[in-house]
């Protein structure tokens, strides 16, 4: 069983989507039963879990608010709701951007902007409109599953425009975060969605799901009733080690969406071409942004430069026939070992020993080292 750190709790069937999935129109509306919510909150508190509540448009009755406020939480909600004390992330769909002016007084510095294929060209305009109203902006390309080359090209153009704006802000000392552009700059390890590994979802139907997307796919995707141990068969496949493409990738900011993986490739551990292409496009824009900001960021000497790649999808590299396996291994090892490369070997070996003494012995056995006793000239 993986180490779950938080629960995503969907407060009503029509609660806002904050990610790659669409909210299916549901016959029954209404909030999650109060009794269920009480059990979920109680479970979270007793197990040291944080909660991300996902709200819909319905304002919460008093007793719900009290329960929500009683747990360590973040509330993810559409604009127009009363921001919660725990921390609020606003979800704005591109077609609801007209609500954005109401954000002028937005106390929540965190916004998720969901953009569809038909409004991609307006992405940089939307970001401009939201400037000053967020400290962190998460951009979700909600139709990613249908992206082909034209959409990717539009994304690239839009990212260039947004990148210029971000660079200008950074030069002024305003270090805003835009997920698709700045996350990769500051990450040195994978930081993916983590569905099923770091978080599980509890839906209004009283069932566990890997994430809200699976809830909207139907109850056959449930992991069982809340209150029982979630059925997570083959859960190792949700972990990075067991994802042969992602394990060899340094697009650390990528969502690595297991829902899209399942839908497009049939396997939760295998990303689609769309996911890899977009993450690499973003990675490359981050690389260019970083290169254009040599000293604008405080502590920039600690930031590891992002190397340029000659592929836009690690799968391409993995399956290339003109490069032998050894050369591929060397490439991926050098890519993934950053910034460990800078750590003295003795320090690294000490860490290996502390983590797993057996591994150190194995490493010694595997690594040829012959004593050369010839006298030095």
């Amino acid at each position: 069983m993986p180490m779950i750190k938080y629960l995503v709790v969907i407060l009503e069937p029509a609660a806002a989507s904050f990610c790659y999935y669409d909210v299916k129109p549901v016959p029954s509306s209404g909030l999650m039963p109060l009794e269920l919510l009480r059990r979920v909150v109680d479970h979270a508190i007793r197990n040291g879990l944080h909660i991300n509540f996902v709200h819909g448009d319905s304002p919460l009755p008093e007793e719900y608010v009290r329960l929500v406020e009683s747990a360590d939480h973040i509330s993810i909600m559409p604009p127009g709701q009363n921001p919660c004390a725990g921390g609020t992330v606003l979800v704005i769909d591109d077609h609801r951007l007209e609500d954005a002016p109401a954000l002028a007084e937005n106390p929540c510095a965190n916004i998720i902007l969901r953009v569809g294929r038909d409004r991609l060209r307006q992405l940089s305009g939307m970001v401009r409109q939201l400037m000053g109203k967020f400290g962190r902006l998460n951009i979700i390309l909600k139709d990613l599953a249908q992206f082909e080359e034209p959409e990717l090209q539009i994304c690239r153009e839009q990212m260039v425009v947004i990148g210029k704006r971000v660079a200008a802000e950074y030069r002024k000392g305003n270090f805003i975060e835009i997920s698709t552009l700045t996350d990769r700059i500051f990450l040195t390890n994978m930081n993916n969605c983590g569905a099923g590994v770091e978080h599980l979802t509890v839906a209004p139907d009283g069932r566990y799901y890997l994430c809200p997307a699976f809830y909207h796919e139907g109850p056959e995707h449930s992991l069982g009733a809340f209150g029982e141990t979630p059925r997570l068969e083959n859960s190792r496949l949700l972990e990075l080690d067991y994802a042969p493409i992602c394990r060899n990738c340094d697009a650390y900011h990528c969502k690595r969406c297991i829902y899209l993986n399942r839908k497009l490739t049939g396997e939760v551990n295998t990303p689609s071409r769309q996911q890899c292409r977009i993450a690499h496009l973003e990675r490359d824009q981050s690389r260019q942004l970083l290169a254009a900001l040599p000293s604008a960021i405080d502590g920039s000497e600690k930031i590891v430069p992002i190397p340029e790649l000659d592929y836009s999808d690690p799968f391409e590299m993995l399956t290339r026939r003109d490069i032998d396996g050894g050369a591929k291994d060397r490439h991926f090892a050098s890519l993934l070992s950053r910034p460990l490369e800078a750590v003295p070997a003795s320090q690294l070996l000490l860490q290996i020993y502390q983590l797993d003494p057996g591994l150190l012995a194995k490493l010694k056995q595997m690594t040829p080292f012959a004593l050369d006793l010839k006298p030095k000239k």
Partner: protein
Amino acid sequence: MVNQNIAKAPSVWMKSAAKTVTFMVTEDCQLRCHYCYLVGKNAHTRMDFEVARQAIDYLVENRDLFPEQAIVWDFIGGEPLLEIGLIDRICAYIEYKQRQQEHPWAESYRFSLTSNGILYDKPAVQQFVAKNRDHLSIGITIDGTPEKHDLHRVYPSGKGSYADTARNIPLWLAQFPGASTKVTVASDDLPHVADSVLHLFALGIRHVSINVVFEDVWREGDERIFEKQLLELADRIIDGTLYAEHTCSFFSEHIGQPVQDNHNWCGTGRMLTVDCQGHFYPCHRFTPFSLARKEAITIGNCRDGIDFNKLRPFLSLDRFSQSSEACRTCEVASGCAWCQGANYDYADTDTIFQRATYLCNMHKARVRANNYYWYKLKRKLASERCQ
């Protein structure tokens, strides 16, 4: 060990460089073999020529998608020789299309068929063989002694098919002298293993490719019967000096070691299977009738082409991500095979990333017998050198 006194199994033509495209031309067969993957055989589902044409056009016209230097056009069924007329027409079209497109495959292609051999001597089949001799391989499946063969390879009436297959073996071997046969061993067959391999050698088949099934069929104690059979076979091959001209794939110098690489075992995904309706599969084991527990995995069809997203799991599969801790650290893992289709069929979830290891004890028994075989053979050859 390089030794000129030991025969080598024939190498597979363009093994890593060739794409294999398999057409399932019919769902019909004269036989009802107990272990056959094709359940629901019927006389009405056959491939339409138009389906084959579309698939060929797609493959030959999209050179960037299929950059392999060579191609094997493979035909299976049911029993493919029931459709020899259709196969002949498809092959003629392939040759025309490759030439018309000036495709490198025009210089580097083979046709291949796997048959039960019953119709092998029929005039239409013989004409096909004569016409395509230079770039054709045909495999005939014969399981060993009449007793072993007839245990599973039977007509709908229950009558064994040994006599009808064996009748055509001399003709087949005359036309394809280096041909090998593939034998599958299940629990019931174990007592016949040694006799069966030797019987096939005696029929003139010098290379026997044989493996135990991957499915959950093994019973307590089977590994002891298997090991005993293999030890007996080892003695008889070595004492009779059969190793000089014959090979049996149970014995290999490269098995029974810890594994250092991270490769997938089988070629699923690099191959392509086309069924009678024109659906594409990563290999025939993912077709609906080959799976007992799971839905088929299609990766496209001859009209729309391949959905390459669906192919990504197959092409990125590695040993590590599908193996348990026990298999990853196993001291005798090399040569321990798996079938991706069987893995998928038995997996706890709808995944190809979970190895079925029902043959674990059988592999370990094989490794012990294999160690014995090579130990004994090397000592024999060494003592002969000293004399």
